[in-house]
C-alpha cells in the first residue's frame, strides 16, 4: 500500500464524519432556530395578538434594518473582524440620504444610492485601516464609530432632517403585495449574501481569510483587496440599512444607531458566528435577529417591561453562545 494517511482518520467512519460535519454546521443555527420556534409557539399560545398578519408584518418590518446590518456584521465577523462603526455609519448614511432629498431634490432612489455610497466609503475607510494601516478591526472601527458620529452631527448641524416628501417613506413603510418592502429587501440581501458566501469565490476567500489570513495570502489570494472588499460590501449594506431606517421614521436622525453594533453582533453570535473568525452563516444571523425582535415584540404583548426585556436578551445571548461553545468544544477541540 502506497497510500498516505494518518491513523486518526481511520477511527471515524465516513458516514459519521459526514453527519458530524452537517451537524456542526447546523447546531448553532439549530439552537437559535429551536429557541425561535419555541418562543413563537409560546407567544402564539400566550397572546391572541401574536399570530396575526398585522403583527407578523410589523415584526418583519421592525427587524429588517437590524437583519440587514447584522448580515453586514456577519461578513466582517467571518473574516475575524468586527465592525463597531455600523451605528454611526448608518446614521450618517440616513442623514445624508435625507438631506439630498430635502435640499437637492433627489429622488428616493437616487438618495438611496447616495446613502449606499456613504456606507461604502466608510467601509472602504475601515478596510484600509485594517489592511493597509494594519490597525486591528476593533480599534479601527472604534475610531470610525467616533469620527462617523462626529461627522453626522457636523453635516446635519445636529438637527434632525425633516420636511421630507411622503414618498421618502416608501423604502421603510411601503409594501408590495401585502409584504413590507423592507422585508423584501431584507430577503433579497440575505439570500444574496448567503449565496455570495457559500457559492462564490468571494465567499470562499472570506472564510479563508477569517480562518487563516496568512494561509490565504500564501495561497495567492490578494488579501488586502479582498478584505477591503468585505468591509466595503458591509458598508454598502450598512448604508442601505441606514437609509431604510431613515425612511421608516421619515427623517434623518443624527442620533440613530447608538449601540446598534451591540444588537447586530448579538444577532450574529446568537446565530452561530464566531468572533474567532472563519465561521458564521447568514441564515443563523437572520434567525438571531428575529429572536431578539420576537423577545421585544412578545414583551409588549405580554406586558413585560423594557427592563425585563433587557435581562431576557442578556440571558439569550449567554445561552446561545454557551450551547454553541459547548458544541464546538465537542466537535472541534483537537490536539
Amino acid at each position, binding site marked *: 500500500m502506497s497510500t498516505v*494517511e494518518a491513523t486518526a482518520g481511520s477511527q471515524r467512519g465516513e458516514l459519521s464524519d459526514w453527519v458530524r460535519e452537517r451537524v456542526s454546521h447546523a447546531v448553532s443555527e439549530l439552537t437559535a432556530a429551536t429557541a425561535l420556534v419555541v418562543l413563537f409557539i409560546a407567544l402564539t399560545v400566550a397572546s391572541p395578538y401574536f399570530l396575526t398578519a398585522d403583527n407578523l408584518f410589523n415584526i418583519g418590518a421592525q427587524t429588517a434594518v437590524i437583519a440587514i446590518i447584522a448580515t453586514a456584521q456577519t461578513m466582517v465577523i467571518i473574516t475575524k473582524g468586527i465592525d463597531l462603526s455600523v451605528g454611526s455609519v448608518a446614521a450618517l448614511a440616513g442623514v445624508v440620504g435625507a438631506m439630498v432629498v430635502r435640499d437637492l431634490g433627489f429622488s428616493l432612489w437616487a438618495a438611496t444610492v447616495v446613502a449606499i455610497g456613504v456606507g461604502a466609503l466608510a467601509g472602504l475607510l475601515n478596510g484600509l485601516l485594517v489592511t493597509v494601516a494594519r490597525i486591528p478591526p476593533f480599534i479601527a472601527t472604534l475610531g470610525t464609530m467616533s469620527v462617523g458620529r462626529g461627522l453626522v452631527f457636523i453635516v446635519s448641524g445636529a438637527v434632525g432632517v425633516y420636511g421630507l416628501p411622503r414618498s421618502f417613506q416608501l423604502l421603510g413603510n411601503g409594501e408590495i403585495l401585502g409584504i413590507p418592502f423592507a422585508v423584501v429587501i431584507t430577503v433579497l440581501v440575505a439570500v444574496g449574501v448567503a449565496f455570495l458566501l457559500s457559492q462564490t469565490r468571494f465567499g470562499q476567500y472570506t472564510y479563508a481569510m477569517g480562518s487563516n489570513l496568512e494561509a490565504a495570502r500564501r495561497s495567492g489570494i490578494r488579501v488586502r483587496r479582498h478584505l477591503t472588499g468585505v468591509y466595503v460590501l458591509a458598508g454598502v449594506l450598512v448604508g442601505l440599512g441606514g437609509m431604510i431606517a431613515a425612511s421608516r421614521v421619515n427623517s434623518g436622525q443624527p442620533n440613530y444607531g447608538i449601540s446598534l453594533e451591540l444588537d447586530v453582533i448579538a444577532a450574529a453570535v446568537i446565530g452561530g458566528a464566531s468572533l474567532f473568525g472563519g*465561521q458564521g452563516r447568514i441564515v443563523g444571523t437572520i434567525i438571531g435577529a428575529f429572536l431578539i425582535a420576537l423577545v421585544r415584540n412578545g414583551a409588549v404583548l405580554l406586558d413585560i417591561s423594557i427592563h425585563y426585556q433587557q435581562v431576557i436578551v442578556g440571558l439569550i445571548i449567554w445561552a446561545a453562545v454557551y450551547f454553541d461553545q459547548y458544541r464546538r468544544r465537542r466537535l472541534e477541540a483537537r490536539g
Partner: protein
Amino acid sequence: MGTTPTATADSDRQPTTDEPPVLEARGIVKRFGHVEALRGADFTVHRGEVVALIGDNGAGKSTLIKTLSGVHPPDEGEIRVDGRPVQFSTPLDARRAGVETVYQDLAVADDLSVAANLYLGRELLRSGPLGRLGLLDKRAMRQGAAAALDELGVRIPRVTTPIAMLSGGQRQCVAVARAIIWATSVVILDEPTAALGVVQTQRVLDVVRRARDAGMSVVLVSHNMPQVLEIADRVEVLRLGRRAARLRADEVTTDDLVAAMTGSISGAERDER
C-alpha cells in the same frame, strides 16, 4: 566528499548543462528589523533534481524559502527562473512561475474543507456568465480533489471534511499534496516530515520521489540527516544566512553534513577547493 555538485562542476555558478537552473537565488539579503536573516544567500536547483537545504536552527532556511516563494520579497539579491531574473513580490508571482511551497508552519485554512484548501486561490468556476460572476464549481473541485489525492496515494476520509477535523499527519499530507498537484516546475518542502511518524514520513518521501520522477524539481528542508542522504541528489548548506557548501548526496556522510552546518570546515573554503 568536498566536491561541488555535478551540475555546477566547471565554474563557480554556471552549470555545465545547456539548461539554466530552474530556480536560482543569488546574493539574497533579507533583514527583519536589525536581524539579518539572510546575508547574501545563494541557492540553485536544476530540473528534475531533489535538493536538500540544510542548516542549523536560525540559519535562514525558512527565510530563504519564503523569498523563493514570494512571501518575503528580498531586500537585495536576485531570483532567477530558468535563467531569467524575476520579481516575486507576492506568493501569487511564485505560484505563477510554477513554484509551490509547503511551509514549516503549514498554511491551511482550518474551517475550509480539504477540497477547498486544495483549490484555495485557484478555485474552479462555473463555465459561462455565472462563472464570470465568481460562481464556484464545487462539484468539479470535489471530484478533482478526490482524483488528485487518489492519484498521489493520499488517503483522506472525505474531501468535504473541514481541515480542522484532520490529525496533524493528515493535514501535513494535504499540504504536501496541494503543493505537488499544482507545481509545474518546483516543489519546496520546509521540514514536511518533522511531526510525522516513521511510516507517514516514508510515504511523503515516496510522493517526493514520484514528483521528481515526473520531472519536477524538489527542494527539501530537513534536520534529519539520514533522511537527507536517503532522498536528496544534492545538498546545499546554509550557515548564518549564507551558502556554506554544496555537496553531492552520494559522496558525503552525515558527519560531513554536520561539519558543514556547524562550520567546523568553512563552506567558503570547500566551495573554492
